[in-house]
C-alpha cells in the first residue's frame, strides 16, 4: 500500500490501519482468553459432559437403566440417605457453632479477633486425611479422649467409625469454613441499628429477632448450602477414617470407578448426576427462601 501511494504514506497507512484494526482489536483479547477456555474445557467441562451423557448409556445404547438400578438398590439409596443425614446435621451444627463464634468474636478486641480469624483460616485447611488421623488419635478406640470419658463413666464406648463419629468429624471441618463465610456477613451488621433499636425501646432479644436475624438470613442460608455441598461431596475424610466401609454416596461413586471389584463407570455417572441434581434442588430451595427475604427486592 505504501509503495503505491508514496506521496501519502502516513495517511494511507493510518486509514488502512483504521479499517482493519477494529476487527483485529476485537480478536486480540479473545486470543488472550483462549488458553483459559481450552484448559477449563478439558479439565472441568468435558468430565461433566462425559458424566451427564454416559449416565444415560447402558451397553452402548441410550437408556435409563442406571437410574432404575439406583432406585432398585437399597445399598445405593442407603448411601444417599447417610450422606444427606451427615450433610444436614453437620451443616446445621457447624453453622450454629460458627455463628456463635463469629457473633461473640465481634465483642472481643481487635488483636484477639485477628488471631482467631487467622486460626480459623488455618484450621479450615486441617481436613481430609490428616484430620481423620487426628480423630483416630483422640477419639479412636484407644484415643486419649475416649479413654478419659470412659474413665469418668461419661460414655461406655464411642464408635468413631460409625455415624456419630463421622458426624463429629464432619462438624469439625464445617466450623472453620462456616466461620470464614460468616465473618463478612456479621461485619455488615451496623452498630447504629442496635443503638437505634434500643432507643426505640427494643431489648437485645427483640433486636436479634426483628433486625439482625432477618438481615443475616440470606447469608445464613447461603452458608448452610455451601456447608451442605461441602459435606455431601466430602470423600477424603470418610474414606481415610473408615477405609470406605461407611456407606456414603461419594464412597459408592469412587468404588465404582476405582475399586478393586466391579467397575461400573456409567452407574457411577448416574449416581453423580443424581447427586448433582440433589445439590441443585437444595440450591433452588435456598434461592427461593432468599428471594422471600428483603434482599431480593434490591
Amino acid at each position, binding site marked *: 500500500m505504501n509503495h503505491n501511494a508514496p506521496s501519502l504514506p502516513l495517511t494511507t497507512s493510518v486509514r488502512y490501519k483504521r479499517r482493519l484494526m477494529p476487527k483485529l482489536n476485537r480478536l486480540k*483479547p479473545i486470543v488472550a482468553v483462549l488458553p483459559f477456555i481450552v484448559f477449563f474445557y478439558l479439565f472441568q467441562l468435558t468430565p461433566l459432559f462425559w458424566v451427564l451423557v454416559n449416565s444415560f448409556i447402558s451397553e452402548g445404547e441410550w437408556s435409563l437403566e442406571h437410574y432404575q438400578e439406583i432406585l432398585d438398590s437399597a445399598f445405593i439409596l442407603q448411601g444417599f440417605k447417610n450422606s444427606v443425614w451427615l450433610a444436614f446435621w453437620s451443616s446445621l451444627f457447624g453453622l450454629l457453632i460458627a455463628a456463635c463464634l463469629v457473633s*461473640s468474636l465481634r465483642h472481643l478486641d481487635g488483636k484477639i479477633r485477628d488471631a482467631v480469624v487467622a486460626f480459623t483460616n488455618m484450621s479450615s*485447611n486441617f481436613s481430609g486425611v490428616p484430620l481423620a488421623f*487426628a480423630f483416630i488419635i483422640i477419639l479412636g478406640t484407644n484415643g486419649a*479422649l475416649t*479413654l478419659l470419658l470412659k474413665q469418668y463413666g461419661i460414655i461406655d464406648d464411642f464408635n468413631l467409625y460409625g455415624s456419630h463419629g463421622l458426624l463429629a468429624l464432619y462438624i469439625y471441618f464445617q466450623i472453620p469454613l462456616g466461620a470464614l463465610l460468616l465473618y463478612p456477613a456479621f461485619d455488615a451488621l451496623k452498630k447504629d441499628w442496635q443503638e437505634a433499636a434500643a432507643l426505640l425501646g427494643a431489648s437485645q432479644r427483640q433486636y436479634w429477632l426483628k433486625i439482625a436475624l432477618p438481615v443475616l438470613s440470606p447469608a445464613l442460608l447461603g452458608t448452610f448450602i455451601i456447608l451442605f*455441598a461441602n459435606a455431601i*461431596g466430602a470423600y477424603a475424610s470418610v474414606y481415610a477414617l473408615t477405609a470406605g466401609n461407611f456407606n456414603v454416596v*461419594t464412597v459408592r461413586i469412587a468404588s465404582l470407578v476405582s475399586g478393586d471389584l466391579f467397575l461400573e463407570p456409567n452407574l457411577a455417572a448416574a449416581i453423580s448426576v443424581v447427586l448433582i441434581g440433589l445439590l441443585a434442588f437444595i440450591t433452588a430451595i435456598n434461592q427461593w427462601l432468599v428471594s422471600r427475604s428483603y434482599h431480593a427486592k434490591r
Partner: protein
Amino acid sequence: MQNVNLMAHRITVYSIIALLALPIMATFVYSLSSHWGASILPDGFTFKWYAELFSDSRFIAAFGRSLFVCVLALVLAMLLMLPTIFVVFYYFPQYDKVMNILILLPFAVPPVVSSVGLLQFYADSPFTMLGTPWILIGTYFTIALPFIYRAVSNSFIAINVKDLVDAAHLLGASTPKAFLFVILPNLKKGIMASMFLSFSFLLGEFVFANILVGTRYETLQVYLYNMRQTSGHFTSALVMTYFAFIFLCTWLGSRFSKGNLS
C-alpha cells in the same frame, strides 16, 4: 452487666477455639510421645518419629512431588487467569457475571464426580494422562480457579483498570505493555496472597490424587493415606509436618493480603 456479657463472649470464643485446636494439639503431643497406648497421657517424649520421617526417602519424594504439582498448577492457573481477568475487566466487564458462574462449577461439582468423568475421558486419550502429574496439574488448576479469580478480581476492582490502561495508552504504551508494566505490578500483593492460600489447600487435596493417579505418582496426601497402617506416632509426625507447612503458607498468604489492604 457489660462485664458479664463480655465474659460470656470470651468463654464462647475460647471454648470453640479450644475445640478446634484439640485435634491439632493431640496430634502434636502424639507425634512427640514415645508411647501412648491405653492411657490418657503419653509415657514419654521423643523426637524419633520426626527423625524417622525425615530419613524416609519415600516421604521426601512424595513431598517433592506434591510441591512440584502444586507449584506448577498455580503457575498455570496464574498464566491462564491473569490475561483472562484483565480481558474481562478491561474489554467485557459485563462478562464478569458469566465468569462468576463458571468459577462456581469447580466448587459445586464434588471432586469425586469430576474424577469419574476425568477417569473415563482420559482413559482413551492419545497420550497418557492418568497416573501422571499432568492430569493433576490440570485438575488442580480448576479447583484453584474460584479462589484465584475472586482474589485477583478484587484487586482489579480496587485499582480501576480502565483509567490506568487509558492513561498508559495516552503515554504511548500498547495494551500488552500497559498490562505488564502498569496493571501487573499493582496486582502483586493480591496474586501472592491468593497463591499462598490456594497452595495450602492444594497441598491437602486427596480425592483427585488418589483416584486419578494413586501410587503411580505418590503425592503427600496419598503417601499419608498409605502410611495408615504404620505407627500412629509416625503418621502424627507426618500430619504435624504437613500442618506446619500449611501454617507457614496461610501465614504468608494472610500477611500478603493484609499488606494489600493498607
